[in-house]
């Protein structure tokens, strides 16, 4: 873990309120799919966590949606500007032999990164992604996604991505599902995976204070072999076994 001052290579619009940022990290940083960084926003009391979308050796890519002041601030930055981030934080996915990767909304970032890594290693994977509507799809990444659904049918299949999971399980018979998205989607997919006895890994979100396991601000409840205990999303996660997570206990996602 370190504090980085990174130069923005580009920061481009990728959809409605959606941006892809490329950061120059001289000398490179080591990261794995599912990990995240925390960005300093001037005058804000908390850093803003963002998942890593890709690592090109000399740079990290991010995919983010403008939600409030912090992401608004980021969206206004230009090539050549600097940002301060800390990282690299969190654990990584443990993919199987045959993987179904699912991203919902900006939850696409970590599973997209995973897909690219698996491709490099020649491991089989299928990436499906769901969005509310066409505008929310990051154009640049479309070609890498095997199935896209939109809630309103404005692009790809119509419906929630959770609905297509079962079909994809049947078609692709994966041994592992890796998913990142809204809690409700991860909950539904975990249940489906359980039904088919498939290992399902979910990437959780939580309000982060320190991002390093010190403040216990980000904990969720997990069932750890019968023992119900707290787990820090920033350190023990963000990736957990979908069967072990109490999705209800996580009001914030």
């Amino acid at each position, binding site marked *: 873990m370190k*504090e980085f001052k990174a130069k923005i290579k580009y920061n481009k619009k990728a959809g409605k309120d959606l941006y892809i940022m490329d950061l120059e990290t001289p000398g490179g940083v080591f990261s794995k799919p599912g990990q995240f960084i925390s960005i300093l926003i001037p005058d804000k009391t908390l850093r803003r966590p963002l998942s890593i979308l890709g690592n090109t050796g000399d740079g990290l890519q991010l995919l983010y949606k403008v939600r409030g002041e912090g992401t608004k601030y980021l969206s206004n930055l230009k090539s050549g500007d600097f940002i301060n981030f800390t990282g690299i934080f969190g654990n990584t996915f443990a993919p199987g032999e045959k993987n179904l990767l699912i991203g919902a909304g900006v939850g696409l970032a970590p599973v997209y990164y995973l897909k690219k890594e698996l491709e490099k290693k020649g491991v089989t994977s299928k990436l499906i992604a769901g969005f509310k509507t066409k505008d929310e799809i990051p154009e640049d990444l479309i070609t890498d996604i095997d199935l896209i659904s939109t809630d309103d049918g404005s692009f790809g299949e119509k419906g929630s991505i959770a609905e297509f999971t079962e079909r994809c399980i049947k078609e692709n018979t994966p041994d592992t599902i890796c998913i990142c998205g809204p809690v409700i989607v991860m909950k539904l997919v975990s249940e489906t995976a359980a039904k088919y006895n498939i290992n399902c890994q979910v990437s959780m979100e939580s*309000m982060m*204070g320190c991002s390093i396991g*010190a403040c*216990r601000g980000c904990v969720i409840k997990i069932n750890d072999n019968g023992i119900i205990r707290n787990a820090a999303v920033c350190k023990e996660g963000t990736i957990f076994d979908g069967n072990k997570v109490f999705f209800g206990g996580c009001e914030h996602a």
Partner: protein
Amino acid sequence: MPDLSVDKGKLQLKNPIMTASGTYGYNLEYEDFTDLTKIGAIVTKAITLEPRDGNRGQRIIETECGMINSIGLENVGIERFLREKLPVLNNRGISFAVNIAGASIDEYALLAKKCESAGIKMIELNVSCPNVQHGCLEFGVDENILEALVKTVREVFTGCLIIKLTPNVTSIEKLGLACRNAGADAVSAINTIKGTGIKLSFENGKFKKEQVTGGYSGRGIKPAALGAVLRLKKVLDIPIIGMGGIYSLNDVFEFFASGAEAVQIGTANFTHPDIAGKIVSELDSFMNNNGFKTLDELKGALRNE
């Protein structure tokens, strides 16, 4: 080379920059970011007799000028702390105080005794915990109960005994005096201010609400913290450790000017994980460049004009 040490009775620190309980973990959490042995003292997360799970639901929320936390004393318990965390602190030569929290006077005494036996040199009593014996009021809001608590702990703990005061009282002076009368070596102030953070959004004709009620910390509480330190300074002859919204050396100076002998940095660690070590260096350079040989000299200059 200026002398940064704090030498006020049993409060002995290599420098006045400490990190605040609950924001700095137990021991090595920040070691990738700053040299922990450079810090005056790190204060551990509050430790209770038994491990605790803390509060459910969303625990933190950002506000315009700070944040609200409702962690609820989640911690590993004193036994595991002494077994797993303490040896690391000792082996690495990190200066520290252990922040302890009990549900009764006996629990505090037992915790303090265990610290004493383990050779711990400095403890900070978190007295903003619900007082189960006395109808769930906090220990830190009634001067008689607080005095009894501190007296009892004083009997079993010979090291530096710091009492951390809550600002959520009518008269923090009375509580500070109670600590002093009971034999405390120092008070620290302030713990978080009671507060609520709300985040509303309105979409598709419906309000969405995130809401956390708990302790308010960060930049926005600095004026209240400085005021509390000033009021305490007027009535106390034991050292005061100031905290609340410290983000810079200038903030540290404001606390010195108000009467603090040392300070703690809390929320600022979240955005600036290297801040404690950095401020130690800045303080050193400032004193060096401007001819202040001791901290007392610097504090004198800040207090008299």
